[in-house]
């Protein structure tokens, strides 16, 4: 290239890079502005600074939660069991509902691509869009306070994930065993049970165990709205302002989740 052509190209490159830098700087400024504005609107304007007091008083408030109420511990055993069983039953019930939903929502086995399939997908999304607390509220008002509401709520909330993963597993199967079972004269049930199920079993069981683990946490929380278990105990301690008691309940929930972790680990080993 000629010297003048080179310097023209260099000029062009330099000006392009300057423009890019300016654009980037401008974007960052706008983002910073948005963040500052959000902070102003949501935190600074909305917080009761008077009540907050100083940093020391905030730490003191947190400090009130430190400590264990040992008197409470024996009273926690029954709620812990209740929470645990709620999680188990909720997951099992959720499995039974998930299977047909997964079958509807898998493109290769759904009975109809334009009606059943969208319906299956809709049910999956519905289950996942409604938060477990909302499900709990719905069922508490439908069947009353106690574990039944919790179990039903957990079942409905679990369907979304289990059926979604199962449907995807069904869509990813190898079609050759399916073809073989059709070729020996199998009907639709036999094709499903021998051709499809063995291929998806490991994934589905792993997903169920995963969901069961999550359900332990969910079931503890649901008690807050009256669905039974530890959540109810938690609520009672809160309204009595017994902060060490609240911490004790949280620790109990933690213990349950740890038990769930250990169980999950061994069940997965056995299943996969």
């Amino acid at each position, binding site marked *: 290239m000629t010297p003048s052509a080179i310097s023209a190209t260099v000029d062009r490159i330099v000006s392009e890079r300057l423009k890019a830098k300016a654009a980037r700087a401008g974007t960052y400024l706008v983002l910073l502005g948005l963040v500052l504005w959000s902070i102003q609107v949501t935190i600074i304007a909305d917080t009761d600074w008077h009540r907050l007091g100083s940093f020391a008083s905030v730490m003191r408030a947190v400090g009130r939660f430190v400590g264990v109420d040992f008197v409470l511990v024996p009273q926690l055993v029954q709620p812990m069991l209740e929470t645990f069983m709620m999680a188990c039953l909720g997951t099992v019930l959720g499995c039974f509902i998930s299977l047909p939903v997964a079958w509807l929502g898998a493109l290769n086995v759904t009975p109809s691509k334009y009606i059943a399939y969208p319906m299956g997908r809709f049910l999956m999304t519905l289950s996942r869009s409604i938060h477990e607390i909302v499900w709990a509220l719905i069922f508490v008002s439908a069947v009353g306070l106690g574990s039944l509401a919790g179990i039903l709520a957990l079942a409905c909330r679990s369907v979304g994930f289990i059926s979604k993963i199962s449907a995807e597993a069904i869509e990813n199967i190898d079609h*050759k*065993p399916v*073809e*073989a*079972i*059709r*070729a*020996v*004269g*199998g*009907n639709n*049930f*036999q094709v499903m*049970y*021998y*051709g499809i199920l*063995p*291929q998806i*079993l*490991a994934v589905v069981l792993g997903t169920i165990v995963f969901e069961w683990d999550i359900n332990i946490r969910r079931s503890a929380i649901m008690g807050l709205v009256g669905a039974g278990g530890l959540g109810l105990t938690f609520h009672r301690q809160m309204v009595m302002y017994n902060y060490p008691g609240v911490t004790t309940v949280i620790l109990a929930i933690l213990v349950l989740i740890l038990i769930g972790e250990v169980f999950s680990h061994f069940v997965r080993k056995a299943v996969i």
Partner: protein
Amino acid sequence: MAILEVSDLRVRYVTGGPDVLKGVSFHVDAEDFFAIIGPSGSGKSTLVRCINRLVEPYAGRVTLYGEDVTRMAARQLRRLRRNVGMIFQEFNLVNRMSVMDNVLSGRLGYVGNARSLFRLFPRADITRALELLDRVGLGDFVDTRADKLSGGQRQRVGIARALMQNPKLLLLDEPTSSLDPKISREVMALIKEIAGDFNVPVLCNIHDVQLATEFCNKIIGLQDGTKMFEGPTESLDRKALDEIYAMEVL
């Protein structure tokens, strides 16, 4: 006497698309070990799958033991399929199940849903399964998971499964394409021997011409969905092969 008659079979995969089979006709007799040869894409696999309607033809007719397969309703079709044993190129076993369960699945056309659900096959079936597994040389692998076997072993399981159906016809879809030359020969010999013992006619789709000429007594050659050759194996000469494969072969 012809037990299988195929007349003017036409298949296409997309309506309005090109024909994969363009009016193929032939018949298979009771003592035949019948081969369909031809280049890739000539429609051999499609043709074999039309016999038990895993692929639906849009025109033409398939008659097996006097019954019109192409017009059958679903339930009749299942009853037909349980009498037609099929052996696949990639074995098509249920990998996570044991060899025994795979062989027993050959009887699914004969057991109801309840028995299928609990895997409660009749004792006679289990006895026969063991006999067949012995016959194909897998007596020691009865409880092994199918995916732990070698290719040749898996195909033997496939053979046992097909024979569990007490089939009146055996369909083979490139049974040796996934196997090495020595095992291929063993598998073909085994199939021929057992088919002879149980008096079952065989219709085989195969692309290895040497294997076809070695084991089969009748051959048709397909090219691009059309039958280019039909006759006993002896009459398959160089000229016919060149026509079928449209190039120099061996």
